């Protein structure tokens, strides 16, 4: 078990190091996320009260957009230069690879979400009434999203039409995460009075389910083809 975590850490560190060296998430994906927030303002006619009420949902849509790109990039990395062969030949267990990529993608998305949250506060005049709830919502929602993303990233690994297939497969499965994340964040931003923590509970369950599935199927998916 300790070794599994050690191997997962190795993979996660490698992914984050790649991000650190190439700065793609920082220089390209984060600005894209902010752009999405700007475009929403155009779409909603810069109606401040409307934007404020919709801020939680728009936040998660921006996360979805950026998240898909992040997942795609994370798996494109592994399919170049014969690296997939090298990984299969190394001793790293597929379950550890899944966990490692899950952690790395989540870490990148969480940093992005801080930026987006600031964007939402600044541009939509949202207020973070319950910061703990907001933070936990972001954390659990991101983990759930990343778990699903890693599964479908592995499904699309090695297949040729990757860019359009991944979103098509991913979004229906990630829909409940968006739903729950938005409801919880609405409470955290003071937009609704629903029980935010209950929705967080649902996010935890979804994270657990898809992490378990990912641990099981990542190996077979990596081996194929």
């Amino acid at each position, binding site marked *: 078990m300790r070794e599994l975590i050690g191997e997962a850490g190795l993979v996660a560190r490698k992914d984050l190091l790649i991000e650190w060296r190439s700065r793609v998430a920082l220089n390209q994906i984060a600005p894209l996320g902010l752009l999405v927030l700007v475009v929403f303002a155009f779409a909603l006619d810069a109606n401040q009260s409307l934007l404020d009420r919709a801020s939680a949902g728009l936040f998660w849509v921006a996360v979805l957009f950026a998240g898909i790109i992040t997942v795609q990039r994370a798996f494109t990395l592994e399919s170049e230069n014969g690296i997939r062969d090298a990984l299969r030949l190394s001793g790293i267990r597929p379950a550890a690879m899944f966990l490692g990529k899950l952690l790395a993608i989540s870490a990148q998305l969480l940093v992005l979400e801080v930026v987006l949250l600031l964007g939402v506060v600044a541009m939509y005049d949202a207020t973070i009434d319950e910061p703990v709830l907001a933070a936990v919502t972001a954390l659990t929602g991101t983990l759930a999203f990343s778990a699903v993303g890693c*599964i479908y990233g592995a*499904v699309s690994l*090695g*297949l*040729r*039409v990757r860019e359009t*297939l991944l979103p*098509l*497969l991913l*979004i*229906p*499965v990630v*829909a*409940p995460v968006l*739903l*729950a994340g938005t*409801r919880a964040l609405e409470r955290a931003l003071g937009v609704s009075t*629903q029980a935010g923590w209950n929705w967080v509970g*649902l996010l935890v369950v*979804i994270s657990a*389910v898809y992490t378990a*599935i990912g641990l099981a*199927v990542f190996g*077979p*998916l990596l081996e*194929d*083809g």
Partner: protein
Amino acid sequence: MQQVERKDSMTGSLATTTLGWASLASLIVVLITGLITSPKDANQGEAVRLLYVHVPMIWIAYGSFIITAGYSGLFVAKAANRPDSGRHLDRVAGSAAEVGVVFTALTLISGALWGRITWGVYWQWDARLTTTVLMFVTYLGYLALRKLPADPYVRSRRAAIVALIATVNLPIVHYSVDWWRTLHQGASITVGNKPEYTNDILIVLLFAVVAFTLVALWLGIHRYRVIRLEEIREEEGIEMAIASRRAEAEVGS
């Protein structure tokens, strides 16, 4: 599934021809009873006739996807031991999914029309409708995956895994949306009220279910056989490729 028996109809057989005629006949009966001889409903008026199409469609769609899930699971189990076995299981999963997707699309369309007439809206955001549309898109993705240019074994196994995950996902979606909408009580017209239908209507409905099930089976069997034919053609291709590869060897490098 049995051998092809007739030359002029490549995937036809005695069974499917019989099935085809039976479904055509029962569809005509449904058409007549549904549109003409059965009474209109006390509450919904003529709109109830759409239900003769809409309700069987969704049941068949659910049934098809259950078949897809079940056979995908069996395929994964079988293929785990021997990578090239269980192809027939994968074929059933694929053809059932195609039938399911077609019927889901028809469900959504007929449901939208019915909703427009009875509630005045084409759509509403409740658990059932939202889950149905997500289910539709999910299996569109599954079918897209099945058609990718790739090693067929690899493709089938990945598609099976995707189908299984989709099956896990649907209850999660249903539960989430249901919870979400019950927190917005009173905002929408509930679909959940069980309307009281007269026996006349229920009989036609039952018959419609039978008729459309026959159609679905007929479509599914033909689709299965077409898939099988595609695979046969590929296999013959391999035999020839192996032979010509060996011939290369004999001719010399």
